[in-house]
Each structure stands twice: as C-alpha cells, then as structure tokens.
C-alpha cells in the first residue's frame, strides 16, 4: 500500500455489509452500531449501498451454496485496498451450523479475512473494537 494512503483511508472507512446466510442477529447489531447509541459515523464509517464504493466488507453468516459466488463477486467488485471483517461466530467457524448440506463456509475458506469478531452475536462495541483492530493493521502495514 502506498505511503500516506492509510491516513486518509482510515478516517473514512466505508463499509459494505453482506449477509451470506446468517440469522440476522449480527446484521441488526451492525445496524445498531450505526444508530444513535453507538454512532460509528463519528469515525467516518458509513454503510454504503454498493460494493464498488466500499473499503471494508462486513460478512456475516456461514455462506450457503447459493451465496458463495455472490459473496465472491462482491469481494471482487470492491476496489483495492480492502479489508474484510467477519462478524459473528457462524461466519468464523459455522457455530451451530457446523454441519449441513447447503453450506460451504466458513468465510475464511472463501475470502481472506482480516479480523474475526467473536460473539453470537457480538455486541456493537465488539464490532467497533474490530474496526480499531483494522486501524492497527493498516498502521502496521504502512509502517513497513
């Protein structure tokens, strides 16, 4: 990554949220993080409606057969540099959906995941905490 990029990049992480088959638990917590109580917009984080505008991809869910290529397509459509945060345990490892005939996850089998958020579902603070981890990661990348 080019030097100096992360400074401006970090200040306005635009987020695209993709649900790959989760139970909505994590999804509503992501929206809750955007709402008044947690208000992540003070960090310049914004939920956008198109992957082509996004810097960070938030993925939830254990990836169903139908969604696999769609998730991949979204990832490919995102411009570089990009980061992927996997929210919730079903995306991390499958959680209660650890076996099934219609699942192809976990997500890190399909996409390179940068930060895993653990929880079922994680509290909005845990998601903000994950964003802080992404900042740290960006900074270390730039320092190199």
């Amino acid at each position: 990554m080019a030097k100096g990029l992360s400074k401006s990049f970090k200040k306005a992480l635009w987020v695209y949220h993709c649900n790959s088959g989760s139970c909505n638990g994590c999804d509503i917590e992501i929206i809750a993080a955007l709402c008044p109580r947690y208000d992540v917009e003070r960090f310049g984080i914004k939920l956008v409606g198109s992957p082509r505008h996004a810097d960070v991809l938030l993925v939830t869910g254990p990836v169903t057969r139908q969604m696999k290529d769609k998730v991949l397509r979204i990832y490919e459509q995102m411009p570089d540099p990009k980061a992927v945060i996997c929210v919730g345990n079903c995306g991390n490892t499958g959680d209660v959906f650890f076996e099934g005939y219609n699942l192809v996850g976990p997500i890190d089998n399909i996409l390179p995941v940068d930060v895993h958020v653990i929880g079922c579902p994680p509290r909005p603070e845990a998601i903000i905490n994950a964003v802080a981890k992404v900042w740290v990661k960006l900074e270390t990348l730039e320092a190199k």
Partner: protein
Amino acid sequence: MTEKTTYRLPIGPIHPALKEPVQFEFEIDGERIVDVDVSLGHVHRSIEWAGTRRNPIQNLYLAERICGICSYCHPVAFSLAVENALDIQVPDRGEYLRVIQGELERMCSHMLWAGVAAHEVGFDTVLYLTWQMREKLLDLTEYLTGNRVTKAITMIGGVRRDITKDMVPKIQETLDYFKENFEKIRHTYLDDKTFKMRCQGVGVLTYDDAIKLCAVGPTTRASGVKKDVRVDQPYFAYSDLDIDYITPDILTGEIHGDVYDRIIQRLLEVKQAIDLMEQCLDKMPSGDIVAEPKPAKLLAMLKKAEGEGIGRHEAPRGEVIHYVKLVSGEENAYTWKVRAPTYNNILPWIPMLKGEQIADIPIVAASTDPCMSCTNRVAVVDRDNKYILNKEELHQMSVEKTRRLLK
C-alpha cells in the same frame, strides 16, 4: 409498433433495500409491476436436517439461530412441541415468564420494523429515533437474559431465568418510558404527511386474498382477518390475561388492508404488549420456573419418550409452528419441521405488489416484515444484462417519489 413491451427486473439477492438475501423478478411495464416471482433459498442452512442429528436441548439453541430477530419464538415453539408430545406440564410461573419474554420480543421486533419501514420510505430520521428507543428494550432484554439478541432463556418445560422482585422496577421503568413516548411514535407515523402519502392505498391485500393465501400475523390482521394464536388457542398464560384480537379498525374504524393499516396494526400491538406485560407482572404466581431443573435428567427422559406434537406460538411476524416427532431409544428428534411466519407471507406479496410502482417495492415488501432467514432469505440479478437496479438506486427512487409527492 403498438405492441407493449414489458421488462424483467430482477432485484436481489444482495440489495440495499433488502437486509437479507432473497430474489425478486418483476415483470414491469414502465413503472407498473405486472408480475412478480420470488426465489428463495439463499439462506437455506439445512437447519431442520441438522436438528435430527442433535438432541432436543442442543436443538433449542439451533432453533434460536433460525432467526436473530425472533430469537425467542422459535425455541419456545420447539419446546411447546416437545411438551405436547411428552405431556410435560409447565409450572404456572414458567408460563407467565414465557409471556413476558414473548411480549418483550414483540415490542423489540415491532420497533425494529418501524425503523426499517421509515427507512424504506426514505425517512431516515425516524429510523434513528425508533432505534434509539429500541435500545431501551435491548437493555432490558440484556438485563433479563444476559444477551442483547439471542436470549437463550427457553428450556423444555419452562424457562432458565427467573424474574426476581428487584428486577421488576427496571421492567416497569422501561414500560413507563414507552407509555410516555407512545403518543410521540403514533404522531410521527400516523399524522405525518409523508407516511400518509406513501402508505395509504399502497400494497393492498384484500380480506379474501389473506384467507386464501393463508397469510399470518400482522399482515393478515391488518386485512381484517381475526387470527392470532394468542387468542385462538389457550397456551402459556395468555388465557388468564385480558387479551383480544387487534385489527386496525380499532383506531380508525375501517379496514383497507394497505401498508398504512399494517403500520397502525403494529403500533397497536406494541401498546397491547405493554399492557400484557403489566398484567403478567401483577398476576404472576410464585413457584417453580421449570418442570425439570436438571438437564441431564431431562435428556434421559427425552431418550425414552415416544410421540409427536406440534407447538404454535404467535411470533411478532405471525404464527410459528413446529412439528416434532420423537422415537423412543433415540436421543435425537426423528423429524423436526419448522414453519416460520414469512413462509406463509410470501405468496401475499404477489397480489400486494401487482399494479404498484417500482419505487414502492421496498415499502410493500417490508410491510409484511419479511424475515428470510426464518423462511430460509430479496436480491438484484443481472440475468441477460437487461436491467439492473441496486438497493441504493431503489432507495433513491423511493426518496425521489416522496419528494415528488411532497411538492
């Protein structure tokens, strides 16, 4: 050429107006929708199949993750099914606690829906307002159960956590907050010009269609069908409480079955939920909260049991029904069938959407409060590269229509 051409417009599976993956294919003529086709399956996680490979206690938590928004109704319907199959009698206090949790979830879900509906008509300020109020409910949920979303409170034969005397003031405080602010929400939704213009006469579901297509929950009640499992059939402690059917004519005196009526319906249900919770707190008897407090003993009992049963519960979106068959000598359930409310509310989308404009798709679809992860999940597809519309654009159109109407 005089022949009219129609276009096919796919929306979904990933679409900003749709919070969950589901795919619509619209046949459109200009801005009018001529035909609708829905394809599901993007969130099919093979839950029912997995449930036959695990024991009923594990299934409770699997059922909870069918849907994160109604994370209480599924496990409770499952345990009702098991209780019916085995004839387990739940202690009275347990029944009352179940009602309180159920009504708390209903308030939570309807507030969430109110926010989403506001977002779909392009009125984001109200989204933030309702979600701010909803945080109060989430705090209460966390206080009573230990997590904001997944409650993990149901146990076969009762509940896992009691409400002690020192917890009551906090519940009362939250209910009072909602009672004080109810008029504010009602005013925002029902007296607002924008809402009236966008919602009245849009997405009409007639009484006959609602019955024929087997619609459930607030969707069918807003069309005037009196169908509410809480009142239809005695279960939990609902039969002890003062409860009656709620239809939008209580407030307005007439039924149109449009989106506006569905908003009224849900607001009235929030009010009813507050009332029911207060009644429960008053009447709650003392005693046990669960029939068999030792999970290990319960498992042994379930292993020997044989029988089948159905469990029905009125979830925020409508009737949930679980069918369970248990075979003796096997710890795992033999068959487990889950019917989530949205499953029955998919077909009513078709009469609702036909003849409407494209910009109305989000609000009409959202008006049934679809929960695709329950059913299994809407999307834009670029088949044949004909016409692609993403959620953002759809939302934009929605906003533009509001502005146009306001002029």
